[in-house]
């Protein structure tokens, strides 16, 4: 079946380091991937979109890559801060199909 998989274990990172989150897709070829941030008890908030013909996208301290050979997207937060602690969700999209990953909880320790 078509799947988007994210690491279900929480990721603990020391403040100031780079946090890297992974999104793998199986039996699916998304035309684009989106990354969202979700804080407890809140709806997700859009962060970045990357299309299948793009290798990398950046926005301030955020960077996302899309590797169609590995069927994987990596999401990086550089110079991480405790305020970056949240759950990060990956969404794969094609024309009329959207598949969400379950999210990875990121904890940035001071």
């Amino acid at each position: 079946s078509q799947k988007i998989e994210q690491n279900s274990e929480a990721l603990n990172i020391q403040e100031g380091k780079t946090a890297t989150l992974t999104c793998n897709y199986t039996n699916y070829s998304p035309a684009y991937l989106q990354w969202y941030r979700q804080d407890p008890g809140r709806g997700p908030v859009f962060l970045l979109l990357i299309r299948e013909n793009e290798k990398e996208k950046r926005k301030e301290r955020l960077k996302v890559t899309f590797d169609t050979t590995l069927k994987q997207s990596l999401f990086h937060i550089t110079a991480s801060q405790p305020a970056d602690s949240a759950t990060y969700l990956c969404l794969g999209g094609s024309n009329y199909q959207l598949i969400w990953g379950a999210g990875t909880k990121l904890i940035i320790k001071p």
Partner: protein
Amino acid sequence: DVKVTQSSRYLVKRTGEKVFLECVQDMDHENMFWYRQDPGLGLRLIYFSYDVKMKEKGDIPEGYSVSREKKERFSLILESASTNQTSMYLCASSLPTGMNTEAFFGQGTRLTVV
């Protein structure tokens, strides 16, 4: 500031009750979605609508129905609430899917069925 507003943050209902969850967006978006989110399962699509009076089943439509009489409003109806429908419900809106734009989410409704 663009907004998707859900009518309630928290709701407690009894088994068998008919439950209405309302969602309003002010961005003139064509697409609207209803998801439920449970720990470890991520977002699961219940229904979506791409135009007024149009609706499509998502992955888990059983026990739910929807209504979209106006472009800005999308309602989720639990015909006869059951305890396994206790969950966080999220409404979202977006421009047409082919434009692969972002989804805007409401703040969520945490529904407990007792």
